[in-house]
């Protein structure tokens, strides 16, 4: 295998970093957390730069890049604690439509994303907080030319703002995806610990949608599994980026901050903690890009790769948040310092799409049952 970004991918990474350095400074996230900011302008800029189209298939107007490129962008978004609909749209809504929709349905729902930055979300969990598909009870029932929905969806990223929401429901017992206009559902927005990762609870009860909004590209539950896998790795990539930034901030701090007359980075205890953070960041990056590669190659290790990416990101954030805040000392314990913005972005990744522990157990069960 060749497990390093190509020159083109490295160039994409460089460009993405430059764009976000300029367009998504940490002050934007802070403004949003303080209620005075908006992500709209950033989204307009990214749309003008074709970010929404980049990893969409060419038939719907996309540029046809793969998951590795998407992981590059998502990692940079996390690294900049960038707000806005990018992650939920391209890593949650798009995979659901791509895998579950017919070509026509893909065209209908994805072309607006590629062309004009239409936004989307994905609604899966119903309150357990496990994203376990077996627990899904929400349903869509055929009634004449339309479907009537029932149920509640929780922890829906951008659930109160997305234009279209891919909702996982049961139809005749099987898992299906219905694309519901955001304005059709009642959404209650939460006050999340990371203000740049907005969540809502949405109420589907009695919502009626046209029958052509049921995605019928496949009648297998597997397409839903695949969509949730991609969404999960998207969260891991964003967490990875936030962790990288926490590490970077800490390295700068350790080189500059003086205590007892020397930079604190010369203390062995500080060094060793930073090395452990670095190792976990590198470990997580390996696992996240392995999952991205597995998606791009339709490799049958997708399930375990997904869980490894998510659990890896979770272990990484645990250590980076813990030691990253501790090593900063009092300065990092203020609202003013940007560190807290990245801590919150890193921590929020652990709290959705399944905990590290649940994913580790899946990995082990999977290995136990392998021949």
């Amino acid at each position, binding site marked *: 295998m060749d497990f390093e970004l190509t020159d083109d991918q490295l160039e994409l990474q460089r460009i993405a970093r430059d764009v976000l350095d300029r367009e998504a400074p940490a002050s934007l996230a802070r403004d949003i957390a303080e209620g005075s900011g908006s992500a709209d302008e950033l989204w307009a800029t990214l749309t003008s730069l074709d970010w929404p189209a980049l990893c969409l298939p060419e038939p719907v107007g996309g540029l046809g890049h793969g998951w590795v490129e998407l992981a590059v962008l998502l990692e940079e978004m996390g690294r900049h604690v960038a707000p806005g609909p990018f992650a939920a749209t391209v890593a949650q809504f798009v995979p659901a439509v791509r895998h579950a929709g017919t070509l026509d349905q893909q065209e209908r729902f994805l072309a607006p994303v590629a062309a004009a930055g239409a936004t989307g979300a994905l609604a899966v969990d119903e309150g357990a907080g*496990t994203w376990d598909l077996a627990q899904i009870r929400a349903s869509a029932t055929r009634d004449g030319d339309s479907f009537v929905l029932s149920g509640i969806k929780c922890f829906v990223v951008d659930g109160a703002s997305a234009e279209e929401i891919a909702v996982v429901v049961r139809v005749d017992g099987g898992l299906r995806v219905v694309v519901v206009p955001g304005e059709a559902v009642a959404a209650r927005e939460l006050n*999340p610990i990371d203000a740049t990762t907005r969540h809502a609870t949405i109420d589907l009860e009695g919502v009626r949608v046209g029958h052509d909004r049921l995605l019928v590209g496949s009648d297998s539950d597997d397409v839903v599994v695949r969509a949730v896998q991609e969404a999960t790795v998207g969260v891991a990539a964003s967490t990875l980026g936030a962790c990288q930034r926490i590490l970077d901030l800490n390295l700068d701090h350790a080189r500059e901050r003086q205590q007892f007359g020397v930079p604190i980075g010369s203390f062995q205890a500080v060094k060793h903690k930073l090395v452990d953070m670095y190792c976990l960041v590198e470990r997580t990056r390996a696992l996240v890009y392995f999952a991205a590669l597995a998606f791009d190659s339709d490799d049958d290790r997708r399930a375990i790769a997904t869980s490894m990416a998510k659990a890896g990101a979770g272990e990484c954030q645990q250590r980076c948040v813990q030691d990253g805040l*501790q090593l900063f*000392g*009092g300065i990092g*314990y203020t609202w003013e310092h940007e560190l807290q913005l990245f801590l919150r972005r890193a921590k929020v990744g652990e709290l*959705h799409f399944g905990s590290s522990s649940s994913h580790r*157990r899946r990995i082990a069960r999977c290995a136990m049952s392998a021949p």
Partner: protein
Amino acid sequence: MRLGYDEKTEAFRDQFVAWLEANLPDPLLTAERPTSSAGVPEWARQFQRQMFDDGWLSPAYPSKLGGRSADLFEQMVYLEELGRRHVTRSFNPQGLGIVSASIVSFGNDEQIERWAVPIMRAEKTAALGMSEPGAGSDLAALATRAVLDGDHFVVNGQKVWTSGAHDADVLLVFVRTDPEAPKHKGISALIVETDTPGLDRRPFPDLGGPDHVDFNEVFFDDVLVPSTNLVGDLNDGWRICNGALAHERAMLWVMWSQSLDNMLDDALAELNGTSHADDDVVLDRLGRSIMDSHAIRLLGHRQLAKQQRGLVPAEQSILKLMGSEAQQDLAALILETLGAAALDQAVDSTLRFPYENDRGAVSWSDRYLFTFAGTISGGTSEIQRNIVAERVLGLPRG
């Protein structure tokens, strides 16, 4: 070794329990909450005053200073009974525990009457001006200067992390009065009234959110402080500084122990009845936190028993380290266990314990973040480990 206390101590406990039952404020009157660690609501001031006047505020002190000359075991059961009921003695903890205590230990009678007693009686609130920007854990490096000019000191410089300064009436400020002396030697302690011209307090929020304000930067620009506000001798501030931090240190572990126990109670309540209560991974980690809680209390009792025998116990140097990290571990566990259910920061802010200093009644996410105050302030865990290694284990300085 034995599990219980002797009769004399139990009699003391009974006496205090009777007093508490007769004097605890009506919970309905406790709706007004503190605004900072020096912004004390009126009902709490009244209760603190009552405790002082009845000799229950600082039981180790003589009666004229709000106490009854209690011994260590009596102080222990006193704190147990307060903790059991979640009763906060003072909502201005640095004022009572450090500022007034330092004045009582090192000040003169006039200073005690003018500041210490009013702070104890909650007529005034106080804050502690110790940390400075850039000095971090290195207290000996403090740079705020005070120059004696006739009957006043002229103070210039800056303090930071001064909890509650914006709500406080007075500050106890450590200043450098002899810039020529070796680092430790030229420090003095001054009482500064916060309405003195040239003193500027700038509160700033901690990482809990823009409205979570307790810390201050405090700027001194030619602030004139009467020389009679000098606590202790000139240039003897290092001793007071250590004394201030050490004050009530003997019993400080009780705070760590009780706040861990409180968090544990909340954690058990949070998990009980959920599927997490049956998750072996959660139980495994929770078991460790329960052990921490017991071990910290037991080690505290061991320290107490040694002190009662006149020994100098090593335990106190590890109790802050263990207590603060145990809280962090537990908060992390609950945050991770609740997962998506912890995404939302909104919490039920209904007061469960009306007498508790509940500015911490927040989401588990914030509770986790706030545990870092414990592992960072008052000497980071890393500094604590260095101290234990060198002073307790006898390892060479690095």
